[in-house]
Structures are given as C-alpha cells and as structure tokens.
C-alpha cells in the first residue's frame, strides 16, 4: 500500500508537525459546519489535545487524516446540537446529504492543505508569486503588486512549477494508481 507509514503519536514533536500541517485546513473545514471562526478553532484545538491524550497509532497516513477530519466533524455536529443553531445545509437529517457535505468540504480543505504545504517550501519571492497566481492574478497584476518585472514573474513561475512538481510527487504517485 502507498502511504503505508505507521504513525505513532508518542512525542509532542509529532503533534507539532501535524498541527503545522493540518491546523488551518481543519479550521476551514470545521467553520463550514459551525460558521464561527472561534468555535472552529476551539474544536480543532480540542481535536489535537485528544489526539495526544489517546496516544493512538495509525497504520498509515490515510487513517490519520480520516481520524482528524472525522473527529472534527463529530465535534462540530455535537456543537451544533448543543447550540441548536440553524444548520447551514438543508436536509441535515438525511444521511446522504451530510455525507456529501462532509466529502465536499474535506476535499476542499485537503486541496488547500496540499497546495499550501507544497508552496511553503518555495523560496520567499517565488512563494509570493505562486500565492498571487493561485488567487487568480495574471502575470501583469503579480508584477505590479510585487514591484518586479513581468519577465521575472514569468521565470519565477517556471521555477515554482518545477519545484511544485517535485513537492507534489508523493501525491501524484497516488493519482497514477487511482487512474
């Protein structure tokens, strides 16, 4: 199996690196449910503390990711129940609707996480160019905002794409299998 690396939650360092990677995406994900950034942050914070307290062992990275998202979702649903707020999506009772709500927002949060973790490893200027490009700016707009030449944007983007390809290799391996 791909991604078959056992993950032991045994030292605070592991929790920190998972936190760095997943904190923001999980908050984004939780916020779709609870519609309040602070409540979302509370839920994700508790999720990491639980992860540490339970000292779980995950057979592979999928299990770990699935645990994180499922555990945040369950806390979010409890919170909604507790607050009795009006839930964002209709047909909450129907399991199917909640399932696709869960899936869609999980995919969105994971897309963001993978992109950002790849982009974080780029050199500073290249990273800025890529962030602006991903936000839908064209080369001219990027050049204006960063006060550099359009040609420079073009060549930095080329470097960035090459680096991103390497960063994303792990994930593409998965895609090829899936195809």
């Amino acid at each position, binding site marked *: 199996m791909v991604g078959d690396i056992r993950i032991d939650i045994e030292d*605070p360092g592991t*929790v*920190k690196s998972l*936190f760095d990677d997943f*904190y*923001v995406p999980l*908050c*984004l994900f939780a*916020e779709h449910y609870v519609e309040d*950034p602070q409540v*979302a*942050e509370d839920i*994700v*914070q508790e999720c*990491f*503390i639980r992860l*540490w307290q339970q000292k779980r062992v995950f057979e592979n990275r*999928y299990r770990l*990711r*699935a645990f994180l*998202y*499922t555990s945040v979702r369950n806390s979010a649903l409890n919170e909604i129940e507790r607050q009795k707020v009006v839930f964002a999506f209709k047909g909450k009772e129907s399991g199917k609707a909640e399932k*696709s709500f*869960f*899936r*869609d927002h*999980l*995919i*969105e*949060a*994971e*897309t*963001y*996480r*993978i*992109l950002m973790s*790849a982009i974080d490893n780029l050199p500073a200027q290249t990273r800025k160019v*890529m*962030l602006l490009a*991903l*936000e*839908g*700016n064209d080369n001219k707009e990027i050049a204006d905002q960063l*006060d550099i030449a359009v040609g420079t944007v073009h060549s930095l983007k080329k470097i960035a*794409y090459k680096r*991103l*390809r390497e960063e*994303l290799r792990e*994930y*593409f391996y*998965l*895609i090829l299998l*899936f*195809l």
Partner: protein
Amino acid sequence: MQQQDFDIASWFAGYLAGNLTSEQHKALEEWCATSADNQALFDKVCCGGNIRRLSTMADRYHRQERWWRIEEKINRKKKIRWYKWVAVFVVPLAIAWGLLEIPGREKEPEPVLSEAGAPGGAKAVLHMADGAVVDLADCAGFSLKEKDGTQIRKDSACLSYRRDTLSGEPVAVVYNRLDIPRGGEYALKLSDGTVVYLNALSSLRFPVAFQGECREVELIGEAYFQVAKDTARPFVVRVGEAQVRVLGTAFNVSAYPDDRMVKTTLESGSVEMKVADLEPVRLHPCQQAVFVPGNRRIDVQQVDVAAETAWKNGMFDIRNWPLVKIMDYLARWYEIEVFYRDESVKEIKFGCYVNRYSEIQPILELFEQTGKIRAELKGKTVVFSTK
C-alpha cells in the same frame, strides 16, 4: 469516507499548481463528467477566487496562540516527570523551594479558575534547553543551572540569568524560551544585564549566555527592553522578518500576530528597525516605527511614549480607541469573552487611564458612564449593547 476523497484532493491541488500531464488532465475531465456533483465540486474548489477566499479565512485564525494552549496541555506530563527528578535528586532543596511534588502522584492539580474579570499577574512558563518545562507561576524563588553553567535565579516576579566568565572555553549556545500566558506578565534579566518586561500572550527565545558579536533574541507579542550598554555587541530583537537593532537603550516592541503589525517605540537612545531588504529606519526618542507584513515600507510617526509603555508601569493608557480594539487588548490581560449585541457599538471611541491590576468591572463602568453604551459582565462574558 474513502481513500479516494483524499486522492481527488491531491488531483485538484495538482491541477491548481499547473502540474497535471495531458493524460491526467483528461482523466480529471472524465471524473468531472461522471456526475454533476463532481463537476460542481471541481468548479467550486478549483477557481482562483476560492483559494483567495480560503486564504482570507485562514488569516483570521490565531494559530500561534492556539498552539500554545495545546502545548500547555501536552507538556503537563513532562512537567511532572521533571518535578520527579527534582524530588529524587535534590529533595532538601526542593523542600526549601516549596515545590515538592509527591513522586508517582499522577493526578493533575485542578487549574485555578480566575474570578470573573480578575486582572492578570506574574505568570510565565520557562522552556529549558533539555526540554524541561517550569511553571513560574506556582513556585517560590529558586536557582537552577543550565548545562553551559549559566545560573538562573527566580525571585517573586523576575527571572535572572548570570554567567560567571571564569570558564573561557567556548561552548555551544544554549537557548531558553519564556512563554507568557493570557493574563500574565514577567520580567527577565538576561546574562548581559538587559532587562526585558514581557506582556501577556508573548514569548521570548534567547541564549542563556550571549556569545559572539551580536546579542540576539526572538520575540512574539509585546515586550519592553532596557538594553545594557555594550557598543561592541549590538542587541537585536527579531520579530519574523523584521529586526530591531540597538546598542544600549530603552524601547518597546509590540508584535502580536493578531494585530498583524510590528510596532517599535523608542524611549531613549537610538534603535534601527530593519525588514528584509527594505531601507532600514533609524528612530529618535518618542518616535514609533510601524511595519505591516506585506507592505513594502516602514512608517515612522511621533507618539507619546508614556502611553505606549504604560503597561510596563502597571497602567492602561488608552486614548480614543474604538471599543473593539480596546476589548481585544484587554482580553489579553483579563480572562474574558466579549460579545457585541449591536455591531454599531464596536466603533465608538473611548479612553481611560487606569490601574492594570484592578478588576475589569470599574473599567467597564467608566465606559458606561459616558452614556453611550451598556456593558454587562456575567461570569467571564462581557456583553455590549447600545444604551
């Protein structure tokens, strides 16, 4: 949930990063074509505006602060172990310090809940080089030794470092970190004699003994520095990509992540603020340099130093701030949650000059006396509404 969901995410990421080969591209199109839901999801996640939207949302989170709270919880076990070590090897001293922990006692002491709106006080957590964590709030004075021989002394509300210069042998630099929780403050005397006052929700990482040509520390949050004069070794405060460089002087640095700016206020002497490749700015007394991450410049303005450094003297000196800014500021010191029943009150401006060690209720009453708003304190919750 299926593994496939995660794979689709990496697919989308690859698409957005412009990394799909033509076959992969085609396969993605096929996947989208299999159902209207798939197509809708792709359109939603993979448009440029969506990443911008998510980034804007992500900017509102208080990542560092939340990590500190998690760290506090997960380091508890470790703390006990360290106390055990103390109990085993230095029992007589431990008794003298008044921090005797019964070995094997696994039950956590219940956290003391602060009373509603009670002010903060001397609270800090020291992270030593070997990973030991010492809570400075709940123990009396003591002395410790870092592995390079530096002496660490703790008095009632001050931690001081002293290095006997006898050993001329150069040793590896040893770092400590002092974290100040919500509602805390602490004073720290570094090995060169520089005194640092740390404000609530702040963190300072520093070498226990300075070595080399530069005295360098890293700050998150707010601190007031009285730098010991040493013209041969400049003192540098690093805040992300910004740095403040001084020789011997007194100044305040405020760099809370949620303020999204770095403010350096000079009281006396001379400091220089540098950010990456920007033109450095040199400040005169009573000037403040402001850097907003993302901006390509450092602004300089005249300020009232007394107001900027009032916190260090135990006061809040607030002049004509919008209510929402005042309450964000006070919530670092008082354990409160703030709600606004009417959005309009957020922008009403107030000022006050009050003792920081008093409770929050009198401050709220001051605001109420203006007749512009109503403030209700229930437990730890403050609710504002129009009069």
